[in-house]
């Protein structure tokens, strides 16, 4: 173990991105609700956001020239990993308060862990991103851990 991840890669653990602030609009909630097939009126009308709306709200907006041939962009928070192919990932979310139109939300993002495991078909690299969302006045909205796997 430990053969794939050298100190230069592991040194990125704890790195944080510049906090981002986004304004929540009823229109954006409605578009999200329709695109995900919500059937509850309060979501379709945009009175309150569905539980995974923040994934859309905080998806990176990058310029066309920054997109790679596959349409993805490089996350500046991540080191260059020795394994490239992304596999399944997981999300783990704690909710503190619903998101409603007019909210100005701040998201902080930290690369909280990098580790490796040996899978049945070779080594796997795991990394974890911790994201906290709060209002501009500091009220906590949600916190989450995103785990991604590379092979």
């Amino acid at each position: 173990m430990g053969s794939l991840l050298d100190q230069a890669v592991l040194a990125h653990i704890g790195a944080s991105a510049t906090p981002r602030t986004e304004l929540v609009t009823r229109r954006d909630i409605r578009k999200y609700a329709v695109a995900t097939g919500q059937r509850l009126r309060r979501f379709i009308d945009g009175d309150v956001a569905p539980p995974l709306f923040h994934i859309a709200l905080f998806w990176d907006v990058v310029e066309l020239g920054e997109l790679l041939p596959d349409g993805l962009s490089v996350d500046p928070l991540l080191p260059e990993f020795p394994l490239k192919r992304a596999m399944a990932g997981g999300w783990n979310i704690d909710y503190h308060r619903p998101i409603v139109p007019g909210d100005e939300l701040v998201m902080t993002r930290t690369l909280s862990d990098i580790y490796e495991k040996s899978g049945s078909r070779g080594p796997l690299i795991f990394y974890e991103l911790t994201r906290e969302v709060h209002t501009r006045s500091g009220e906590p909205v949600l916190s989450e851990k995103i785990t991604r796997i590379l092979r």
Partner: protein
Amino acid sequence: MAGPSIATVQAGDSLPTRELVCDTVQLFLYNAVLWNAHRIHFDAPYATEVEGYPGLVVAGPLIGDWLTQCVLEWMGDDAELVSFEFSNRWAVYVDEPLVSGGKVLSVDMENGLVTLDLHVVNAEDRVVAPGRAVVRLPVG
């Protein structure tokens, strides 16, 4: 909409199932809402010829969203989603028929909390996305 109360819910209770299919239009709208330009979701020749997938790949978090809908439609307006987790285990392709569902795993009467086991399965009955949620239910 009234849902179950902590007094009436029991471990083993089933959540309603729902048949789901993500067609090309929905997949486009979902990735447009995210501003996600990943070609495997909208460029069929790229997805099949370059990446070797059998078709357009459904975005993982959309499947996660369907798990939350399974919970929210069951729990009613007076309940509260406390926490939710899911993972994407198998790729899902456009027009693939899926079913979401779940069951009550445990009931914490004292704190009014219920833990739910969730899944989206494909036509081969394979769990493509397992999930878990903790919900605070009204007292009665």
